[in-house]
């Protein structure tokens, strides 16, 4: 086990280096450099000499690889520069927005589990019965609905028409999290129900289930004692793996509901051409995602004896 974790951590290193290179290179794609963006944002006319002096000061005349190492040094010491717009430290503002995104991700995952586990299991157990068809149609619709359209529909129905919930988040109002959570959870559940159904059907089709049936063990007991136990693990892993798409998918929902998470921060930064903020967003989201996946993998490895046996056999 220790060796496995060590191996995975080693594999992580080139990926992390790659992430920093890509995040850095991304900003080189931008038209104009930092100084241009500063001028654009301040709205002042600045002389050529002053611009050159600033470039010199910021080290923008150095060769690109040297700029990269300077930047990387900053990143490692927790300094990702300051926002062009607010003038605040980028790391600080990222850290202050992150809890909102994590909270949103957490509530949506909980709601996804609450919705999709029962529905997926029912759908598999009642295969090709009315309940199964209804659930499958719902999941199909959920799959085809774009997240932002769903968000606007929910907004219209619950905030505009019924006036049950606030349309946008105001500070300290916990109800603001409900609509974004529901939006994300519906989109995720739609995908997830299909996967749970498939996992369950796969498990139900195994020989041992037939064996149990032929011994006269009641269907309910087979389901709760054996099948669910065996397939819960796969389901949880699939869920852990979808955290990534959730982290990436929050940006649109956050900016529709004005939820002050990192996704909204990034979208706002893009409209303002606030590159250091975008850079921090991209890099940290990737690092978080890689780490979450690693933890999920290791846990899966630790919990599921089948995986270990399989690797031992090789």
């Amino acid at each position, binding site marked *: 086990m220790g060796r496995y974790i060590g191996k995975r951590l080693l594999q992580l290193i080139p990926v992390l280096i790659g992430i920093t290179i890509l995040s850095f290179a991304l900003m080189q794609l931008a038209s104009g450099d930092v100084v241009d963006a500063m001028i654009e944002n301040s709205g002042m006319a600045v002389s050529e000499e002053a611009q050159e002096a600033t470039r010199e000061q910021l080290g923008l005349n150095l060769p690109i690889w040297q700029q990269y190492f300077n930047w990387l040094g900053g990143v490692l010491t927790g300094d990702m520069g300051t926002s062009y717009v607010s003038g605040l430290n980028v790391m600080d503002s990222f850290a202050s927005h992150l809890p909102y995104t994590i909270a949103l991700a957490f509530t949506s995952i909980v709601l996804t589990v609450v919705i999709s586990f029962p529905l997926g299991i029912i759908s598999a157990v009642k295969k090709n019965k009315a309940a199964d068809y209804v659930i499958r149609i719902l999941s199909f*619709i959920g799959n085809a609905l774009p997240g932002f359209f769903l968000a606007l529909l929910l907004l*219209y129905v619950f905030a505009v028409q019924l006036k049950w919930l606030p349309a946008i988040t105001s500070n300290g109002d916990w109800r603001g999290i409900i609509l974004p959570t529901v939006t994300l959870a519906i989109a995720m559940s739609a995908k*997830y129900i299909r996967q749970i159904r498939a996992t369950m059907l796969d498990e139900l089709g195994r*020989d041992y289930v037939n064996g149990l049936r032929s011994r006269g063990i009641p269907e309910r007991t087979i389901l709760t004692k054996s099948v669910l136990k065996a397939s819960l693990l796969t389901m949880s892993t699939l869920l852990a793996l979808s955290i990534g798409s959730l982290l990436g998918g929050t940006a649109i929902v956050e900016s529709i509901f004005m939820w002050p998470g990192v996704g909204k921060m990034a979208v706002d930064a893009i409209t303002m051409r606030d590159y250091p903020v975008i850079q921090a967003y991209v890099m940290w989201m990737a690092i978080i*995602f890689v780490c979450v996946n690693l933890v999920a993998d290791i846990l899966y490895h630790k919990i599921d004896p089948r995986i270990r046996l399989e690797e031992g056999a090789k």
Partner: protein
Amino acid sequence: MSRKPASSKRTTNRLANRHTNRSSNRAASRTSSRSAARKSSYAQQYQELNFRQQEYQHAEYKQSGSLLTTDDLSSLQVGGRDSEQDKQVGPVYGMTKTKRHFIVASVLVIIFLLVVIFGGALVPYNPYAQDLMNARQAPSAAHLLGTDQFGRDLLSRVIEGGKFTVFASLILVAFITLFGGLLGAICGWRGGWLDTLIMRISDVFLAFPGMVFAIAVAGVLTGGLMSAVIALACISWPKYARLVRGLVLSTKNMAYVDAARMSGKKGITILMCDIMPNIAGPIIVTAAIDIGHMIIEIAGLSFLGLGAQVPTPEWGAMMSNGRSLIQLYPWIILAPGTACFIAVAVFNIFADACRDMFDPKIREA
């Protein structure tokens, strides 16, 4: 995987000799070196193929979460949902249910595409013509879906918009399938340092969760719909590279490839003429699944203002522009949103049918 080509080319001498070597080569069968594998017998090759395929799926699955979407993953692992449907032969013409589904879905897609292409000629209004006297009209006989804040007819705009959203998605999927697939095929076929390099690069791209990187790239490029397409291409090519690489790896030591090689064909010809037709199934299925995804993501980027710009009637951009009017004029949102939903639904139906039709990973149990 199909074993047919192998058995049809069995006549070659060297291949026939292998049968006699079976026992002596058993020890070599598990080594991954190509020359050893080439000497092994059919049975062992088949075993090895299965073994490799499992290994590939497992490795793919373990290495990165976003590598295949979890949706694809379950189809890999579980072996295609509803695969038992294939065994139900329909009463008419002996056509399988799967095949009928596929035909129906294809017809649906064709109708949809025809509407998108030629609908523009049939719609009653110019999608760009503003008519401020008739702004924000509710749906009526004159304007079936109503008008937007500039009095433009929403039906005309929605149909015109399909050209942008749907075709951008189709071009994108075609491009990443070709580009990613080609890279993957080269990696799998050549191996060596090039393979390692490209795979490490794809690892890095896969480390960025879903839309995060796309949002940043589209935001930095600021080139309208084109930059949204480039951004999505950036994040989605590695999936195809991985898929095709794994498939090429699992087939390149099969007997029929050896036979082709012995008949004097060049590497590239074998890859294109012998291997590609045998591994096309999973690639087509993955591409079909992606069309719907990409429609949503392109519209999503445009919705954030990172794709198509005004006055382009792209669906995401239309919804973004009408967002502030949702309280009083919900149809401005509803029309493009529903169009987007229908488009994705049509392509998802097609993808499901494609999967049942082409995915060879049907469970044997």
